[in-house]
């Protein structure tokens, strides 16, 4: 495979063009937005819990950004549906990166993990789940931007 084919493999472009979980939920139980200040990627995520108030029944997102950030968020929605908030709060980024399955430079890693961070912020705000240090800045940005 060429570098190009490896980076923009079919599955990434598929998710980018036909994102899963596209569109914000209304009403929703948890919501957050985030930006990658480096390139201006934006992702908003909303979550609805099932009757137990814990299980993620539906998750939707909207965003504007590069193929990697949008495809990764699309994959993330598949990954977390049916899991509990506390389970997702502990989700390791490696699990998502494995799903994405392409080599990412540090700059592109930020794109790939934007939705992941935004979801953690949304759950933290709604359920008080722990928020790792690396997403504190994203949470502060969300407060700043309203």
């Amino acid at each position, binding site marked *: 495979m*060429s*570098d*190009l084919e490896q*980076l*923009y493999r079919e599955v990434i*472009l598929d998710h980018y*063009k036909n994102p899963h979980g596209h569109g914000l939920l209304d009403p929703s139980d948890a919501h957050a937005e985030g930006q990658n200040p*480096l*390139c*201006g*990627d*934006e992702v908003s995520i909303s979550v609805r819990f099932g009757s137990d108030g814990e299980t993620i029944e539906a998750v939707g997102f909207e965003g*504007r*950004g*590069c*193929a*990697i*950030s949008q495809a990764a968020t699309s994959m993330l929605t598949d990954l977390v549906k049916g899991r509990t908030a506390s389970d997702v709060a502990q989700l390791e980024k490696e699990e998502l990166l494995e799903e994405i399955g392409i080599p990412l430079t540090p700059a*592109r890693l930020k*794109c790939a993990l934007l939705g992941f961070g935004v979801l953690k912020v949304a759950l933290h705000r709604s359920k008080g789940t722990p928020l790792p240090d690396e997403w504190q800045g994203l949470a502060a940005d969300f407060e700043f931007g309203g």
Partner: protein
Amino acid sequence: MAVIPATKLDAHALRRDFPIFEQTFHGRPLAFLDSAASSQKPRQVLDAMTHFYETSYANVHRGVYELAERATEALEGARIKVATFVNAPDAREVIFVRNATEAINLVAYAWGLNNLGPGDVVLVTELEHHANFVPWQFIAGKQGADFRVAPVDDDGYVVFDRLDEIVGDAGVKVVATGYVSNVMGGAQDIPRIAAWAHERGAIHVCDAAQAAPHKRLDVQALGSDFVAVSGHKMCGPSGIGFLWGKSDLLLAMDPFLTGGHMIRKVRSDASSWGELPHKFEAGTAPMAEAVGLGAAIDYLEVVGLDAIEQHEHELVAYALDLLGEIPGVTLFGPPADRRAGIVSFDVEGVHPHDVAQILDLDAIAIRAGHHCCQPLMTKLGLAATNRASFYLYTVPEEIERLAKGVLRVKETFGV
């Protein structure tokens, strides 16, 4: 010096002065189309810095031994080169700083903290680089002054008819505008803006970071009170830039950074400040960097600023032609003959980050992002743009590679 003065420059020949182009990326020669972010460095600049370290290095303005004298001469020689380069009336009006950002912060703090107060208006434009936006927003906020943002038209030019309206009857104290836009590439009519500022009793601060590499800078003709320049965009090393300011204003200002070298007397109850320019140059100076900047100025003078400007107009015209032919490509900014070597564009359906990434696989380096101009991006309704920027070493073949690369981007994304 390897270069030969000419009215028209030979970019293919000049490239050989730049060691960075000797290597390949992804097996291809580098098409470096990101000079507006920072330019590459000719061997003449690197050699001058090495030579300084090897033969003349000691701390300046301190020692009485010969080596220290030599270092001082090198630093002050660079200052005189800068002064001549921008047609400053007096070399003492040239303050060495790290970059244009620091130069603007110097004015915002050292002038702003003593001259701005509640009710005063600080005016910038929505085109400004964050370097000429955020310091003013910050200091205006601290002083209770009123920070206002003037609109620009679709090509990125100040709308003069709107200036009086934006300000109304309020007292304007500062008008801070960029000379050449790092996104649109167009050059503002600085003399007219400065004259408007002076009519209203304000000072004019000109961010010339993007202008100095591309066109002759004459601070007296511009009419601004302060002009900020970065060395690294004009073939100089990183870590050096300069502020030019009118001496009467500089003399009346408090210092920005305090410490060694900038003082006259230090007592335990108070200190007094040194003469210009030393009052604004606390701590050990970036000596080798200043020498490098001096060598960069020598280099640009031999190539010729007029020849550089002409070369960039031709490259921009070619780029606008080639990119303009590609369906789905939107170009931003004024016509080619009105701008420096900067072309911002959008590829419909593909985020700039993806465009830049795919171009990188062909060893084409462009910038993708908001270019430190978020207010302008908001106006354009975009999160980011692609930006290709050119300099004296850019050759037409690189623009052809860019256009082909954009076609490959479209093919990859099926748009």
